[in-house]
């Protein structure tokens, strides 16, 4: 399965890393892919480190285990860089995407010499400007789509509006803000 893409999400309980992994699975599914989206359930509580995973492929996926050698890692909260080995097993030709305002040198230092590509995005800024509240998962979702190229930006945005309409059926007023967050995040993510 050479077209298999494996993604590992690191976040803290309550930040929506699990939801983001499920939304990514949804979007990829809607472009015709085979998908898996699953969290690693531990002793979950607000603020505790959590991990979620995605497998995305053109062929059926039969493996049922966690992901140890991901192509991409998404870090929803950069305070995890101190305590979690986020680049463990990350492929050197892959990439890590971090929600952070730290500068490139600082991030590189925290990643202990990871040789692959490093991307960052200030998801707080994107979220506050578009949603008025801090929901980092929406910008991070757009960032990983942009970096991984799993689907075109247009296909992604077209699909997400449908997902948000469904997800926020009872809160339609937040759909616009979420779409704006995705659009802005696609522009804001930068290579370190």
């Amino acid at each position, binding site marked *: 399965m050479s077209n298999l893409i494996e993604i590992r999400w690191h976040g803290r309980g309550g930040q929506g890393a699990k939801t983001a992994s*499920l939304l990514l699975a*949804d979007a990829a599914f809607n472009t015709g892919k085979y*998908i898996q989206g699953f969290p690693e359930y531990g002793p979950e509580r607000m603020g505790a480190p959590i991990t979620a995973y995605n497998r995305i492929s053109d062929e059926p996926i*039969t493996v*049922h*285990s966690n992901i140890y050698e991901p192509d991409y890692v998404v870090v929803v909260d950069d305070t995890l860089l101190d305590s979690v080995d986020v680049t463990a097993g990350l492929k050197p030709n892959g990439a890590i995407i971090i929600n952070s305002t730290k500068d490139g040198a600082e991030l590189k230092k925290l990643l202990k010499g990871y040789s692959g590509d490093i991307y960052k995005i200030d998801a707080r800024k994107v979220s506050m400007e578009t949603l008025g509240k801090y929901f980092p998962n929406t910008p991070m979702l757009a960032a990983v789509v942009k970096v991984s190229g799993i689907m075109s930006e247009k296909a992604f945005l077209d699909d997400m509006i449908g997902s948000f309409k469904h997800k926020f059926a009872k809160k339609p007023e937040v759909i616009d803000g979420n779409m704006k967050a995705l659009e802005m995040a696609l522009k804001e993510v930068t290579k370190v």
Partner: protein
Amino acid sequence: MGIRERLSGNEAAAIAMKQINPDVVAAFPITPSTEIPQYFSTFVNNGQVDTEFVAVESEHSAMSACIGAQAAGGRAMTATSANGLSLMWEMIYIASSLRLPIVMSLVNRAVSGPLNIHNDHSDAMGVRDSGWIMLFSENNQEAYDNLIMAHRIAEHQDVLLPLMVCQDGFITSHSIENIELIEDDKVKAFVGKYEPKHYLLNDKEPIAVGPLDLQTYLFEHKAQQAQAMRNAKKVIADVSAEFAKLTGREYKFFEAYRLEDAEIAIVCMNSTAGTTKAVVNHLRDSGVKAGLLKIRMFRPFPAEEVAAALKHVKAVAVLDKADSLNGAGGALFEDVVSGMYVSKVQIPTVNYIYGIGGRDTTEKDITKVFEDLKDIASNGEVNNPYRYLGLKEEI
């Protein structure tokens, strides 16, 4: 054509129950199966099913309510996991001995203690001798398909036994994956109407259900239960064949994956079989003749058929996701080797206890088993047949 969807294993089970639209669902929430009655109660609330949902105060009552409903003449379903099944224990045996074709979705989880909410098969293995038909499912699709077939099997006049459909807690119950659903009307036509021959609410035929049964007849009734379990094999084969015509998805007693010309083989159940398939494919690419036998029908156990399917291989590993703590191998291992012995199939066979309490089982772990099997096949010696896979310390 079917409906292309993406669902978790729990969602798939709940959707199957919605399409089956049973008369009664009685359930008590327990991780990781909680979502099944949770989703189902939404369907009830929205009027999408006609089911009477009984929110009981314990699993013992859940199974008791199912027994009452099914004995009265209704179709009853439930869902549970681990200690929930333990609490049902008494009523599990009563359901099967009363020959009530109740259907359960069992989302496998380690039975305490110490407390653990993650997947292994210790809950299912605890009821392997209780007289329930037990079907295991590799993924959400199989959990769904097995449930759609369940009533047709359980309610058949030659069977009349309760049936549980197992899937791995969290690993498949909480993983969103692709699935192909069957249209509502086709499910309805396939499952059919429940028409019990004898039932309590039939005022034209007053009957007693579950009276005293002492030395004079209990033995005969147990033998009839055992015979019903033997009969279930043909019914499972027939219903699965009909299901294949409807969906194109073929189910046998077990799936023989690249096993026909295999020299080394793994026998296992549920989600690990999917991981094993990926490893088998890698090994085949490098010329290693590896194969998989994935048990779907664990009760009744297809002893003769398993032995026949394995008789040409040079070494076999049986993977048990529950330890029988007997010093002599897990339950699946015992069933496989006793089947082989009776069929005079003498192949070096080794047992691995693995994945206990949610210990992740990776492609690397499965590759290690096949490496061991290569050694066993080449020198014909098993040495230690009782092994662990993925244990962090030497015992």
